[in-house]
């Protein structure tokens, strides 16, 4: 029972997901002072997992939620639509944000000039608000606006890196990212011209009545390429390595584990829910294209990673390869493949988060990012590098780690689709991962440490890193949430919107 005039917070959860970080960003920008701004950001970030988990339980209990923005019922107003697919992604995006926010104050103090801390936290929250908006919104143009909010703040986060190369990385990402977002909005414009609506469910239901198929296919091509640039789908990944390498440590961990994942979710939403398998895959060579690009990413990007001298850039190339796995799951166009792809979204977010956070600890302790300078670092920093190796095993896909679960799903899906060679490609790519992770292990543990001064990383940085490394093991054994949630999400997406 609600008293008239009283706000029923429960009803407004879908929009709070965006409003909380957005107003947090404003507040952080106003208070300016580093510690206070961090406190504001911390409160906002920890409110998010609570909201998203409440949303997920609500969706599981009573089906999709439709929220009319500003009280204007869809399709006239903007609709926020939460179902099991985006609630699942929201949960891990918000948890990663909260963990990284807990991790970051001292790492930030070390890497960024004090007068910029307030802006840094404000941009972090803006980025989070944009990502959550992209997930929650059911309106094609609203998604574009949120995409630009998250991208613009991400460019700032990257440009705040202490090396001057961070500026160039941010500029190049800005050019490519804006091209991507504009391609997306061209696609939405064509859809809008043909169907007269921007509501995703409405678009889906009217696509069958459209007489001319060609503008729809053109729209799909524009949207896929636009989102492909945001996902860093091979060969559209050129912005990613330097952006990840030169952004501040904590920002890299956050961006690497969330931003590309949200773009993948949008691609899935468009291909499966809006266009549907009929238009999306049967009328186009999309499936073959995705499989080809995925295989190239898995092999070529992993090979580049082996020869990379900067450890952050090595992990970035590894990210491009892992995105290949996710696209592989999409390209198989069956429910098992989609489950594997979505499970890999989740597992890769945890694994790559751990790896970048561990490197953040190393940077804090020693200031090095070059692989060659990491000799003996495992002996001087056993806990940090222990977490790194654990997550590295997950990346390789050793049984008992999270990475194994999603690779296993993908292999099963490939066999189900009758494509045995894909299982072989997964094995080859995993072997390449053994080499590039093994190289770090060899240098970090089996070489004599130099007598460099090493600072101890602060307890909160270590605690978050180790907790995430433990999660890599946990989700390798208990797959109720990661695997089960992914299966539900795949079912919802594969079913498409009602037509």
């Amino acid at each position, binding site marked *: 029972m609600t008293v008239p005039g009283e706000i029923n917070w429960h009803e407004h959860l879908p929009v709070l997901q965006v409003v909380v970080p957005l107003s947090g960003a404003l507040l952080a920008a106003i208070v300016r002072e580093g510690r206070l701004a961090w406190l504001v950001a911390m409160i906002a970030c920890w409110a998010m997992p609570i909201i998203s988990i409440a949303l997920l339980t609500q969706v599981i209990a009573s089906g999709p939620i439709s929220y009319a923005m500003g009280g204007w019922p869809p399709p006239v107003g903007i609709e926020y639509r939460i179902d099991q697919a985006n609630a699942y992604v929201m949960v891990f995006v918000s948890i990663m944000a909260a963990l990284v926010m807990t991790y970051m104050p001292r790492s930030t103090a070390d890497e960024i000039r004090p007068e910029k801390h307030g802006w840094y936290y404000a941009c972090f929250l803006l980025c989070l608000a944009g990502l959550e908006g992209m997930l929650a919104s059911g309106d094609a143009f609203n998604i*574009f*606006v949120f995409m630009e909010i998250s991208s613009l703040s991400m460019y700032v986060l990257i440009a705040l890196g202490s090396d001057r190369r961070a500026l160039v990385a941010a*500029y190049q990402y800005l050019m490519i990212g*804006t*091209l991507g977002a*504009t391609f997306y*909005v*061209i696609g939405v414009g064509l859809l*809008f011209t043909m169907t007269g609506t921007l509501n995703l469910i409405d678009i889906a239901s009217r696509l069958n009545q459209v007489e001319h198929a060609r503008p729809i296919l053109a729209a799909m091509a524009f949207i896929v390429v636009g989102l492909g640039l945001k996902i860093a789908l091979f060969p559209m990944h050129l912005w990613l390595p330097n952006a990840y390498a030169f952004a501040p440590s904590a920002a890299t961990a956050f961006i690497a584990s969330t931003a590309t994942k949200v773009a993948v979710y949008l691609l899935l939403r468009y291909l499966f829910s809006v266009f549907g398998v009929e238009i999306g895959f049967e009328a186009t060579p999309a499936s073959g294209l995705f499989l080809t690009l995925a295989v190239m990413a898995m092999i070529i990007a992993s090979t580049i990673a082996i020869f990379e001298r900067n450890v952050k850039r090595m992990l970035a190339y590894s990210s491009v390869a892992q995105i290949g796995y996710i696209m592989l799951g999409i390209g198989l166009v069956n429910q098992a493949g989609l489950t594997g792809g979505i499970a890999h979204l989740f597992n890769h977010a945890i694994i790559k988060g751990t790896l970048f956070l561990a490197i953040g600890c190393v940077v804090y302790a020693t200031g090095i990012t070059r692989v060659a300078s990491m000799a003996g670092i495992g002996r001087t920093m056993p806990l940090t590098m222990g977490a790194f190796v654990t997550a590295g095993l997950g990346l390789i896909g050793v049984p008992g780690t999270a990475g194994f679960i999603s690779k296993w799903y993908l292999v099963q899906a490939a066999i189900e689709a009758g494509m045995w060679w894909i299982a072989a490609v997964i094995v080859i790519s995993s072997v390449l991962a053994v080499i590039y992770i093994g190289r770090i292990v060899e240098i970090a543990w089996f070489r004599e440490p130099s007598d460099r001064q090493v600072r101890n990383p602060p307890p909160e940085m270590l605690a978050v890193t180790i907790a995430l490394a433990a999660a890599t093991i946990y989700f390798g054994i208990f797959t109720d949430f990661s695997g089960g949630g992914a299966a539900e999400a795949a079912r919802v997406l594969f079913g498409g919107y009602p037509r």
Partner: protein
Amino acid sequence: MNLLNEILAHYNYWITIFLMVAGVFTVVSKSNMIKRLVGLSIFQTSVYLLYLSPGKILGGTPPILDKAYTVYSNPLPHVLILTAIVVGVATLALGLALVVRINEAFGSIEEDEVVQAVYRDDHA
């Protein structure tokens, strides 16, 4: 003659396509970072036209509820593009700010030279 009419009737789309291609061409062909941002802006501007022109109906009026008018132009594209313009301005502002900082840090805004400097930093 028919073909010519067909082409002329859709002149708005031809302008859109021209701007779109000109913008992307500038982005990929130029090395000067400011010129590339200008190209990006032209590319974004083409999208405004893409949205606005189908919203216009010949003989249509603004959407005023009155018995005298029956054909309305769709006002929604205008609202959308207002938002897109804001996004475009923000992007351009951020891009230019980054170019200023790059000029301070590298002493050049030619991408060729800056990328070479980045390469030297990488292998230092």
